[in-house]
């Protein structure tokens, strides 16, 4: 059963080839075994050592936080292991506490040398070191270290972290500056952290976001455009920007997800007569995607005036997709006091179903409030 392998004029027995492979695998196994066991032992010892000092350091940290006269001089004598544990505790409490106590934690961060270290990491570290550094500076409220560093954000995540740092520390001259950091030089999408940061900044001045959207939306990738439109959907109704035509244009986009998000975003600005153009509504209500039509129904329900409700009920009566029709009646339920009397009858089962579910939603919420109180 044993053959030979011939190549380039040489013959080698198959057994010899297998022996070589077996040796390679044997070495691989030895390396993998010691690597795994060694790493496991290292992490276990590290965890044990950290666990031993954690309670004591936590007590000292809390004593320092609640004692106005306490100082943090003792941290200078800590070992590397203890400093690591203290930093993880500091991170945890900075995210949980607020008010005066946080000031003491900021002082502790400075005593541990975190702001200066973060500055160095911003200048010389890899992407994750830079993200850790920006996170520390945000938690410790030290935008000055960012200003002092020779650093410019390179990735969407870094841009989001920089914008967040400036936003959390009231270090933005205007929301437009933060929005520009996030959106001006990028075409690719955010993480949810970036999207949330954009929302927090833009909510103070939606006009800045709408303005950059109007200029740049064609350059954005579909995911980024969708994300920005979703942010627009949550901004509230105080949109004073003059030109919103890009939102209406996005409703003609080739991607369903973009059109859906555009319809949801337009739900905010129903009071603007300039966007309530009949031809645009006609096209939107005849969108081939049930998903988009559902979003348009929600948009009309959100506009909520009698004209929008009349358009919505009319459209629902001709809606061929039962699920999309249900989406529309669900959206319509909140506007029931503005419905013409005959509307619920023509919407048949979908109306009865949506209304009953809405009643249970209200009932459960009321009970939940009663229990909470």
């Amino acid at each position, binding site marked *: *059963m*044993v*053959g030979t392998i011939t190549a380039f004029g040489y013959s080698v027995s*198959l*057994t010899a080839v*297998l*022996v070589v492979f*077996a040796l390679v*695998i*044997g070495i691989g*196994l030895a390396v*993998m*075994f010691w*690597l*795994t*066991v060694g*790493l*496991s032992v290292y*992490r*276990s010892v590290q965890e044990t050592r950290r666990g031993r000092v954690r309670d004591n350091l936590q007590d000292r940290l809390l004593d320092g936080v609640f004692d106005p006269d306490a100082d943090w001089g003792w941290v200078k004598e800590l070992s590397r292991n203890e400093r690591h544990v203290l930093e993880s505790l500091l991170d945890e409490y900075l995210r949980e506490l607020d008010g005066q106590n946080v000031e003491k934690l900021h002082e502790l961060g400075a005593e541990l040398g975190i702001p200066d270290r973060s500055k160095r990491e911003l200048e010389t570290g890899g992407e994750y070191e830079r993200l*850790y550094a920006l*996170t520390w500076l945000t*938690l410790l409220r030290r935008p000055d270290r960012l200003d002092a560093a020779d650093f410019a954000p390179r990735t969407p995540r870094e841009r989001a972290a920089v914008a*967040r740092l400036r936003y*959390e520390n009231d270090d933005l001259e205007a929301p437009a500056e933060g929005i520009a950091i996030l959106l001006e030089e990028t075409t690719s*999408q*955010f*993480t*949810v*952290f970036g*999207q*949330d940061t954009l*929302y927090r900044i833009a909510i103070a001045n939606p006009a800045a976001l709408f303005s950059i959207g109007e200029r740049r939306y064609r350059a954005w990738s*579909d*995911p980024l455009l*969708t*994300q920005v439109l979703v942010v627009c959907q*949550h901004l509230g109704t105080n949109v004073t920007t003059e030109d919103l035509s890009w939102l209406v244009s996005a409703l003609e986009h080739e*991607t369903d*997800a*973009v059109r859906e*998000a555009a319809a949801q975003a337009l739900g905010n600005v129903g009071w603007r007569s300039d966007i309530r153009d009949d031809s645009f509504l006609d096209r939107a209500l005849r969108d081939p995607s049930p*998903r988009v039509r559902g979003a348009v129904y929600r948009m009309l329900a959100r506009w909520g005036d009698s004209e929008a409700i009349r358009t919505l009920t009319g459209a629902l009566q001709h809606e061929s997709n*039962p*699920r999309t*029709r*249900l989406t529309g009646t*669900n959206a319509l339920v909140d506007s029931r006091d503005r419905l013409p009397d005959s509307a619920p009858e023509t919407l048949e*089962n979908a109306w*009865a*179903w949506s209304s*009953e*579910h809405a009643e*249970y*939603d209200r009932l*459960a*919420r009321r*009970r*939940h409030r009663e*229990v909470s109180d």
Partner: protein
Amino acid sequence: MHSVLHVLRQLFFGFGVFVIGFYFLINAYYICIHLLALLELREDVQESRWEPPFRAFSSPFYPGIGIIVPAYNEAATIIESVQSMLSLNYPEMELVVVNDGSTDETLDRLIENFDLEAIEAEIPIDVPTENVRGVYRSTTYEELLVVDKENGGKSDALNAGIWLTEMSLFCAVDSDTIIDRDALLQLVRPFLERPETAVASGGVIRVANACTIEDGIVQSVSLPKTGLAGLQVMEYLRAFYSGRLGLNRINGLILISGAFGLFRTDVVRDIGGYRHDTITEDFDIVVRLHRHLIDRGKEYTVDFVPEPVAWTEVPSTRRMLGRQRRRWYRGMVETVITNRKMLFNRKYGRVGTVVFPFFVAAEMFGPLIEGIGYIVLPLALYFDILNVQFFLIFFLLTTGFGVFLSWFGVFSEVWSFNRYDSPWQVLRLLWYGVLENFGYRQWKTVVAWNGLVEYLKGVDTWGAMERTGFKTDDE
């Protein structure tokens, strides 16, 4: 006699050459997948260790998720399961429990414990399942919806939930699955980052046997005491931290575990939901999603996210495990045959030309060929045509490589999330990686052959999973 021996010798030689070629091809593929997994895991670990300075839970950008829990005769555990899922950390969630014609008190217990009341209105859409007898809403938990329907099997129950949820995403879970509190926040990440293309994402399933569970939370992680369950821990680590991560790297993930997967509701409705006539509905749905979306020229992603974890109890007896694995094998054959047009079809990109063919070769044919090998070997020895030296080297080689791949999975676990934090447990896992090659692996080839025979006979039963339940602190 001489000519018969000659023919046998030629046959065995041909088989041997085929096995060696097959072995090298499959293992070269595995090595590539494992290396890709290492790169993917490195990025995922870095990503998961960075915690951005914001409160994810209060962000308004998380899409609604319908958690769909099929329940058949789960009266003993259903209340605890529902309570556990209601306490998951996720901003917008609907929990849809589908009572699939239980003959015990599953529905009564739900009605009593969660103050359920029947919806009087008719369902205004067609639900393509067995007859839905009633839909119930809770007067205390806004997010809870209970569907009572006639028995139609797990796929049918999942479909009822998919058709009745209002959420844009749904998460299919087994009622006895324990989901980590923040798991949904992580599992949804691909849908937030690629809102227009993400269609499915799957997390990691870990073995809950011997773990301590309190109030629906895994409090401490331990390796099971019995070898059979322990071997499965190692298998799960290898499958998730090596196989699926590597496939994720090339957008070739073709399996998301039925116990914990997140899908875009409208896309799954478009393909008709889960098929009723399959017993591995989780594998089938992902393959069909690939096929459907590629056929329509849609850009899409199916993602594996290694950090969110769901815990499940695995069979702890050989009889139960054999039954489960035969069912998996039957379902795999069925799904492969149904979707055979994807094989070597360039239209289906990497999935059709690389991932699916290698999956079929390794998972479907691999154990069958290995089983034939165990029959051929003694015959070859009997006819004195086996080169023992060659055989021993080849056996060591295959075993060594199998152990290497298993240890790779354990290493990935220690390097990344390190849930088995005691070195003794890690040593035991490594030992299981060796042990499985002596008896367990051979037994699995027998199970595969049995599964194939059952498939050919048209067996379509699920077989009941007898669960011993989770350990609590009190125990």
